[in-house]
C-alpha cells in the first residue's frame, strides 16, 4: 500500500465516525463501537511497542488506567474540563512511559516483561488500597463529558481518535524512528554497533505508545464515568495482547483486525454470559498463537498468494 492509502484509511475512520453518529445506531452498537475505539488505541499502540520496537511491556493497560484515574483526578480536584484531559493526560502518561523506558534500558531481554508485569500488579494493588483517593474497589466517579445519554458525540470522537492513532502510527512507521525501532527489535547489538542511539529510540518508543495509552485512558474515563481497579486486571491486558497477536504482531493493521475479530466475537457470543465469552476469546487467541504465529493477516495473505499463483499457473498452461 502506498503512503497516501494509509492516510486515506485514517480519513475513512474520521468520516465514518461522523457518518455513523448522524445516521444513528442502537445504543448497544454505539457502545460496542466506542469501546472498540478504546481497545484499538490500546492494542494498536501496544503493537507499535512490542511488534515494531520489540519491547514486550505488560504495563500498557496499567498506563491507560493511570490515564483514566488521572483524568478523574484532575476533573474532580481542579474542575478542569474533561476535554482538556485529552491534552494533559497523554503528556502525563508519556512521562511515566519514559520512566519505564529508562527501566527497560537497564535490563536485558526477558526481564522487561517480568518487571512490567509486576508493575501492573503493584499498581492494581495500589489503586485498590488507596481507597481514600481512588474509591478503592467501589470506584471513582467523574462527570460526563457531554450531558445526557446521547452517544453521538462519543461516536464522532471515537472516529477522530482512531484516525489520529493511524496518522501517528503512519508518521512513526514511515519516519526514521520507525526504521530505528525495528532495527532495535531485530538486532539490538548490531544497531548499537552501527551507531543507533538505543537510549533515545527505546525512550521514544515507550513515550509515544504510553501517550497513546493515556489518550485511550482519558477517553475511557470520560465515556464510562466510573473507574474501578478491574480496569487494569490482567485479563484486560490479555485482551489487548490477544487483539494485537490475532491480527498479527508487527503488522500495521494487525491490531485493527484483532479488535474487529475479538469485539465481534464478544458481541456474538455474549448471550452465553461473560465467563463463557472470555473462555471463547482466550481459546481463539491461544489457537491463533499456536497455529498462525504470524497472525490472521499473514495467514490469509499467504493463502491468497498461493491461489493467485495457482491461477497464474492454470492460465499459463491454458495459453
Amino acid at each position, binding site marked *: 500500500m502506498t503512503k497516501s492509502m494509509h492516510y486515506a484509511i485514517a480519513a475513512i475512520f474520521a468520516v465514518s465516525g461522523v457518518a455513523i453518529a448522524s445516521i444513528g445506531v442502537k445504543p448497544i452498537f454505539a457502545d460496542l463501537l466506542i469501546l472498540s475505539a478504546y481497545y484499538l488505541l490500546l492494542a494498536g499502540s501496544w503493537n507499535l511497542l*512490542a511488534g515494531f520496537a*520489540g519491547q*514486550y511491556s*505488560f504495563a500498557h493497560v496499567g498506563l491507560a488506567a493511570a490515564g483514566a484515574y488521572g483524568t478523574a483526578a484532575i476533573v474532580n480536584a481542579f474542575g478542569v474540563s474533561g476535554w482538556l484531559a485529552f491534552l494533559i493526560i497523554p503528556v502525563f502518561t508519556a512521562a511515566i512511559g519514559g520512566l519505564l523506558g529508562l*527501566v527497560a534500558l*537497564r*535490563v*536485558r*531481554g*526477558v*526481564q522487561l*516483561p*517480568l*518487571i512490567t*508485569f*509486576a*508493575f501492573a*500488579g*503493584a499498581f492494581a*494493588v*495500589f489503586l485498590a*488500597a488507596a481507597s481514600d483517593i481512588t474509591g478503592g474497589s467501589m470506584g471513582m466517579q467523574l462527570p460526563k463529558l457531554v450531558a445526557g445519554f446521547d452517544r453521538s458525540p462519543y461516536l464522532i470522537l471515537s472516529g477522530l481518535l482512531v484516525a489520529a492513532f493511524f496518522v501517528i502510527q503512519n508518521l512513526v512507521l514511515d519516519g526514521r524512528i520507525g526504521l530505528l525501532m525495528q532495527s532495535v*527489535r*531485530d538486532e539490538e547489538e548490531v544497531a548499537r554497533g552501527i551507531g543507533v542511539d538505543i537510549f533515545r529510540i527505546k525512550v521514544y518508543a515507550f513515550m509515544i505508545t504510553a501517550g497513546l495509552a493515556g489518550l485511550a485512558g482519558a477517553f475511557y474515563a470520560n465515556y464510562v464515568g466510573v473507574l474501578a481497579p478491574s480496569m487494569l*486486571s*490482567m*485479563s484486560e491486558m*490479555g485482551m489487548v*495482547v*490477544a487483539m494485537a*497477536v490475532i491480527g498479527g*504482531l508487527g503488522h500495521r493493521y494487525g491490531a485493527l483486525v484483532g479488535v474487529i475479530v475479538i469485539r465481534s466475537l464478544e458481541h456474538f457470543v455474549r448471550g452465553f454470559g461473560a*465467563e*463463557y465469552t*472470555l*473462555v471463547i*476469546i*482466550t*481459546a481463539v*487467541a*491461544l489457537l491463533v*498463537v*499456536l497455529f498462525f*504465529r504470524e497472525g490472521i493477516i499473514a495467514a490469509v495473505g499467504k493463502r491468497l498468494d498461493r491461489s493467485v499463483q495457482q491461477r497464474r499457473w492454470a492460465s499459463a498452461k491454458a495459453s
Partner: protein
Amino acid sequence: MSAGADHGTKPMMDQLIVQSLILGLLQGGLYALLAVGLSLVFGILRVVNFAHGEFAMLGSFAAVFAVTSFGMPAWAALIAAAAAGALVALITNVVVLRPIYLSRMRQKGEYTIIATFMLSQFLIAATTVLFGTTYRNLPGLWESNLNFFDYVYLSGNRLVAFSAAIVMIGTLFWIVYRTDTGRAWRALTQSPLGASVVGIDIHKYANYAFLVSGAFAGLAAGLLAPLMFVFPSSGVVALVKAFIVVIIGGMGSIGGALAAGLLLGVVEVMGTIFVASGYTDAYGFALMIAVLLLRPAGLFGKMGRAI
C-alpha cells in the same frame, strides 16, 4: 516521657520484630517454593513461563477437590496438588512451548512469553467457567495455634508449610548437584550448545524440569491454600510474587530464589506491620525496583548462571 514507659515499649517492639521476622520467613519459604521452578525452567530453556501461576492455581483446586469431593486426607490433597501442577506443566511444555522452540522463527523468547500468557488467560477463564469464582478454603495439616516464648504466635499450618517448602527445596538442591538429571540441567543452563554436542537430550530434561516446576508450584499453592483462598485468578498474584523473587534472586538461580523468597516474605510482613497494611503486595515491587537500580542482574546474579 517517663523511664518506665520506655522500658515497657522497647521489649514490646523487639518482640514485634521477632514475631514479624519469623512470620516473614515462614511466608518467604512458600514464595521460594513457588518461584524456584520458574527459575529452573528459565535457566534450562530461557523461557519465561507466564502460565506458572496457573500451575499453582490448578494445583490448589486439585487439593480442594481431593478433600471436598473425594474425601481424601489433607496430606493426600497435597500430593494431588503437586501431581496436578506437574501434569499441566508437562502438557504446557509439550503442546505449547516445544513447537515454538523447535521452529525456526525469530524472537522465540518473546513469543513463548505471548504464548504462555495467552495460555494463562485461557486457563483462568476455563477454570472460572468450570468451578465459578467462589473463594474456596482448604483444611490444613495442623490446625492449631502455637505459642513460643509467650509472645511468638504461629499457626501450625504455617509451620508445616514452611517445613515442607524447605524439605522440597533441599531435595531440589540434591537433585541438581548430585544426580545425572541435575548434571544435565546444569549443563543445559551453562551452555546449551555444549549440552547439545555432548548428546544431552534437551526435550527429556526440559520435560523433567517442567514436571518439577509444576509439582513445586502446585505443592506451594496446596500449602498456601489453608492460609489463603483458592480461586481462579489466584495464579496472577502468585506469578507476580514469583517474578519478583526471580528478579531479586537472579534469573535461573535456585539458591537465589530461596534467599530472595525469604527476603520477600520478611519485607512484606515488616512493611505491613510497620509501614501500612493493605499495601502488602506493593512492598515486594518496591524491593524489586530497589534491587534493579542497585544490582540489575539480581542480588545473586553471578550464581545465577550456575542454576
